[in-house]
């Protein structure tokens, strides 16, 4: 009896997706699809990345590091860090507030707010930059008033910070929103009946529940803040050493035929991207580890 039963039992692989006859493809199709995917990755991702680093190091490490001693390059790096350093925390606060309001409450104009949050994604970055020029520029709406009060926004650091904030503003809210909506209000209500105040509920229940999604949103926000070109380019005015961010500075160097320098700075941004990827993977892994598999991942947007 036992033997008869045993002979009928197929040993299934212990983990993961089991390909049954119905879902598996012929070997040729499988290899072809995998091959196309790999070829695509090599041509469009690995090759460019390799070229960035190989060109940067073409003339050796000494030349590579000499690039960063150039005062204009150092200024560009500082400016990028400053813009990201202001934009990311502000957008984090805004993102949490917006996701919280939309996810946990019902109010008039909610869908309009959701649409507005997505606006920077749907508008071309160049247009985003132009909006600020039209608002704060010399011929702009507020231009004369700003000139009277000797405040410079366009072709100055404030304009770059503003443009960066605008372009990166949906990232945190977009990551948190689906999560907050999915989690509903139950845990918050439970906390209230247990005597927690509004702030305690937010800090001890709402925030910890979305911490991985928040971190994920911040990582993406930061990557975009440092890499933004279009919007910043319009408001910057390309004053070397003053209003050039790293992406703008790379363009300037490249146009000056300083390939090693251009690619050296570019390699910094590429490194940032790699670090971002690693941190992102760790965050995903950690959030799964906690049994909190609701982190909505994906939805990356192009620059």
């Amino acid at each position, binding site marked *: 009896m036992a033997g008869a039963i045993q002979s009928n039992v197929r040993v299934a692989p212990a983990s993961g997706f089991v390909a049954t006859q119905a879902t598996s493809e012929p070997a040729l199709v499988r290899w072809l699809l995998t091959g196309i995917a790999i070829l695509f990755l090599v041509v469009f991702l690995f090759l460019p990345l390799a070229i960035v680093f190989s060109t940067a190091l073409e003339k050796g490490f000494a030349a590579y590091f000499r690039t960063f001693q150039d005062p204009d390059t150092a200024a560009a790096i500082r400016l990028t860090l400053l813009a990201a350093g202001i934009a990311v925390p502000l957008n984090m606060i805004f993102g949490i507030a917006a996701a919280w309001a939309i996810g946990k409450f019902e109010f008039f104009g909610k869908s309009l707010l959701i649409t507005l949050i997505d606006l920077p994604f749907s508008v071309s970055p160049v247009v985003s930059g132009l909006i600020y020029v039209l608002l704060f520029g010399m011929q702009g709406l507020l231009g004369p008033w700003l000139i009277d009060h000797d405040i410079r926004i366009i072709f100055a650091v404030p304009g770059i910070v503003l443009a960066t904030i605008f372009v990166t503003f949906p990232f945190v809210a977009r990551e948190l929103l689906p999560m907050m909506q999915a989690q509903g209000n139950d845990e918050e*209500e*439970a906390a209230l009946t*247990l*005597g927690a105040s509004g702030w305690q509920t937010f800090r001890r229940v709402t925030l*910890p529940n979305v911490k991985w999604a928040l971190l994920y949103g911040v990582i993406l926000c930061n990557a975009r803040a440092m890499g933004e070109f279009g919007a910043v380019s319009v408001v910057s005015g390309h004053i070397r050493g003053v209003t050039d961010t790293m992406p703008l500075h790379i363009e300037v160097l490249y146009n000056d035929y300083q390939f090693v320098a251009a690619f050296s700075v570019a390699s910094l941004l590429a490194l940032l991207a790699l670090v971002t990827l690693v941190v992102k993977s760790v965050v995903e892994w950690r959030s799964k580890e*906690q049994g*909190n598999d609701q982190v909505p991942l994906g939805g990356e947007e192009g620059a």
Partner: protein
Amino acid sequence: MSINVRNITKAFGRYTALQNVSLEIPDGQLVALLGPSGCGKTTLLRIISGLEFPDSGTVEFDGQNITDQSARERRVGFVFQHYALFRHMNVFENIAFGLRVRSRATRPPEAEIRRRVQELLALIQLENQARRYPSQLSGGQRQRVALARALAVQPKVLLLDEPFGALDAKVRMELRRWLRKLHDEVHITSVFVTHDQEEALEVADRVAVMNGGHVEQAGSPDEVYDCPATPFVFDFLGKVNIFHGRVESGDPATGTLEIGAPGHLASGRPPAAGYVRPHELELRRERNGDATVIEATVLRIYKAGPLARVELRRRDTGELVQAEIPRAAFQALALQPGETVFVKPLAIRRFDDGMPC
């Protein structure tokens, strides 16, 4: 702590969830709010808890009007239908939460918190699971943790929203016995919401049957089961057969109800409806000269279980009738589908005669 709900009305937009509801919950009792989904029972529970506020009417705890107090001030323990455990905290921290969020002045020292949580863990028989996260527990365990978390703050009132709704039948049964036992030990005024009449009748001291935003009847399980006040309560608390007939003789309100075929009835007599539970029907092979029996055909027979259930179709009106008879009686009859039997109602309940049952 007694709870007194007076003339509560609550609407969500155009939908009226509660219509002038009044209910008294005596101190120390375990009360069930029973009704079909959408009857307003959960809304009423949430209004008692302070998670929802009524459009009009008042809520009193021990005679004190607390309608305007928030959930936080009312000190109620609330157990949510889907537990609402804090997913990023382990079992211990979940239970300790209510103590930890207290202001510095009223917060017990850490050792006292640990002692209290250990006590509650023993009460819910999960001493060994203190370090686990909610996602690692079974549904029944999560429900018990939710209960312990609510009890940790020593609430004046315990409110439970469909506490066993999401559990399978066997765990449900165990947990409701356990809840009853727990209530007998702790004696805290408790209200729970359920749509399961068996659960309500078995566990509660008092049952309030709700329908369409109002309370149809409130009373002890025996009262509501034996003396349902309205056809809805009768129907909701068990299976029912409705016989339409005419009052045969005497006073229209009190005369005997004739439930024979419409054509055979003396016309001109007032119509009336009689309600009969399936187990209050007797099945016979012969008419025995009794004019009050109904001729019916056996459609289906379900023999599994303590009672044999027989589905019948009336010969005269074509209406379906359900009967439940003891297995011994069923075996003596030896019925087969398609055979003809005579149905004799042993007790008929009417709601139009104005009589207490």
